[in-house]
């Protein structure tokens, strides 16, 4: 019997750098993800987006610091120095760097606090939606039969609901709050994740490695989470990165309509809503608008880049940002 000849290559040093973990979830796909990370690092648009997101996150995180340096707290109304005699907002000046809003509050401080709400709503709602959607998609795709029928019809139902009407009706009953806004966003976002994951699982479950696991006597749970899940994780990461901006916009929409965060708590959505009554006060609309635009644009571009990084062939085909 012949033995393979390549045995001398890359042996000890390869093992030395890798931890001696055994079995289970702990050692899944690291080198595949390392490759993705490498490709992302080379993508200038992705890096610019990531830096932009980091800056906005820092802006939100250090909102109290912004308040401290300006000396204006978030809901403090400066009727004398912050408003024109007719009660309209004042433009940018050395006291109010981004101007004031219609109540004479510092717009810079309010945008910083608004960023907290937007990111919080976007991230939490996306996390819930991705978790629920992935679980539903896995169960529905792998278990099939009656489970699939029930879960798929539920997904169809959720996708068919008019979400704004639903949100308005819900808020009319329980009153607006950040929690309700997040719940509404998550409720209307998981279904699309569930569908995509289900489709992936349907094709994965017919692969021979799933049959191999079954012939070894693995339980459905084990197959779903250890054999199938790692193979859909790439898609889930991409979906999540694209869901975050839409959740942020969703939150802004709800707040704009008065269905999200109740005033006086600032949110980009309700600042923009207030701003539209003062068309001559350009700063009032511009700053929260630009923040919202930059945030969603950065997340979208980063999401696209992550998708490309997971699929290098597509990357070459469209050669969007690849150098060489």
């Amino acid at each position, binding site marked *: *019997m*012949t*033995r*393979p000849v390549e*045995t001398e290559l890359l*042996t*000890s040093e*390869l*093992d030395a750098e*890798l931890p*001696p973990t*055994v*079995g*289970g979830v702990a*050692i*899944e*796909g690291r*080198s*595949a993800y390392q490759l993705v990370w490498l490709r992302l690092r080379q993508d200038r648009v992705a890096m610019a987006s990531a830096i932009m997101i980091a800056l906005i996150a820092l802006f939100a995180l250090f909102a109290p610091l912004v308040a401290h340096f300006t000396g204006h707290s978030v809901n403090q109304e400066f009727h004398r120095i912050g408003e024109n005699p007719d009660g309209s907002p004042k433009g940018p000046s050395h006291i109010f760097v981004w101007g004031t809003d219609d109540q004479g509050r510092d717009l810079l401080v309010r945008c910083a606090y608004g960023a907290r709400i937007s990111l919080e709503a976007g991230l939490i709602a996306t996390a819930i939606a991705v978790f629920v959607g992935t679980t539903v998609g896995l169960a529905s795709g792998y278990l099939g039969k009656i489970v699939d029928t029930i879960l798929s019809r539920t997904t169809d139902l959720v996708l068919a609901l008019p979400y704004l009407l639903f949100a308005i009706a819900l808020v009319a009953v329980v009153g607006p709050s950040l929690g309700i806004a997040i719940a509404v966003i998550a409720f209307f976002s998981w279904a699309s994740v569930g569908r995509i994951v289900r489709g992936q699982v349907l094709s994965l479950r017919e*692969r*021979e*490695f799933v*049959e*191999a*696991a*079954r*012939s*070894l*006597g*693995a*339980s459905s749970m*084990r197959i779903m989470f*250890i*054999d199938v899940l*790692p*193979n859909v*994780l790439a898609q889930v990461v991409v979906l999540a990165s694209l869901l975050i901006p839409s959740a942020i916009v969703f939150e802004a929409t709800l707040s704009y309509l008065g269905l999200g965060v109740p005033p006086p708590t600032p949110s980009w959505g309700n600042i923009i809503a207030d701003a539209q009554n003062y068309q001559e006060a350009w700063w009032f609309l511009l700053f929260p608008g630009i923040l919202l635009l930059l945030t969603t644009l950065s997340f979208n571009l980063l999401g696209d880049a992550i998708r490309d990084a997971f699929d290098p062939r597509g990357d070459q085909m469209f050669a969007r940002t690849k150098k060489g």
Partner: protein
Amino acid sequence: MSTEPGVAPVQSQPTGEVLLELTDVVKHFPIRSSSLFRRDAGAVRAVDGVSLTVRAGETLGLVGETGCGKSTLARCITRLYDLTAGTIVFDGEDISRLSPRAMRPVRSKIQMIFQDPYGSLNPRRRVGSIIGDPFAIHGMASGADRKRRVQELMEMVGLNPEHYNRFPAEFSGGQRQRIGVARALALSPKLIVCDEPVSALDVSIQAQVINLLADLQTEFGLTYIFIAHDLSVVRHVSDRVAVMYLGKVGEISSSEELYLHPRHPYTNALMSAVPVPDPDLSDRRERLILAGDVPSPTNPPSGCRFHPRCPKARQDCVEKEPALIPRLGDGPGHQTACHYAVADGEDLTTQRSQLPSAAQAQDLVATTRSTEGSETP
């Protein structure tokens, strides 16, 4: 690999008792119309009454064209599919109706090696954890002990144990198949069902993997069911060979006997399709070429399923299904399901179907001399 007559094939004589017994195993896949109101629109009769026995320590080859049901039969034996009818007795226990839970201890005794070395290994998991899977699933050996046993297995199948932390994508096809073999061996099974384990590999690698399987058989007293569509491979590895056609066994015999005295016309046709590595011999040889495809297993032909393509077909063949019994004075080990079994030295290439639809059959059964190439003056 060497299949010349001079080289002794790697074989062990079957001496053990019956390890696996299939009785009238049937697997139908119902076809459902996709409309809202589901109606059964017939069934694909992938395996339609197969009875076989496999003795401990032997290798049973299973050959047949694509779509003849050999892979389905393999998945019935490993209970990846539930049977439609029939019984499977493994090691004295009827496993054909066991629940998934009751099946788990049996699964460690019956393992499978898959055809596609790329599809059968999870691309997102490391080789160490793939081979360690059987231990994890059956709660045997953990931590350092599991790693040690996995590395022993890797060494046993000719892989470098240092490659424990690599991903399947970092291995070649042959090495991947070795990983599959190591995984199948982990729980020291009694029976390994090899579903075309080498057909996706290069010929040189095929030989390596086949020799590995043969070595392991000698070392651990394994029993194999070896599925292939390549007769030369099956001949090399098998003690006995079963020829399947459209979900049924057409002929079963010891390997040498089958190659010396093929009784079923279908076996003869398969044999004549094996390339001969001698151009002179090849030129002189008449090839029996079956025309047409295997009929649909949804609606198999009546009587003998081979009759629409058979050069010896008679009216009986359409009406009566032939039993799988010894024919033409063969021993009990050589059974053929054919009313008009082929005698030694009989030339099938000159025969024509005697069916009423003979004109049609003439078209289906074409005989050619293999010399009819462009080089003939």
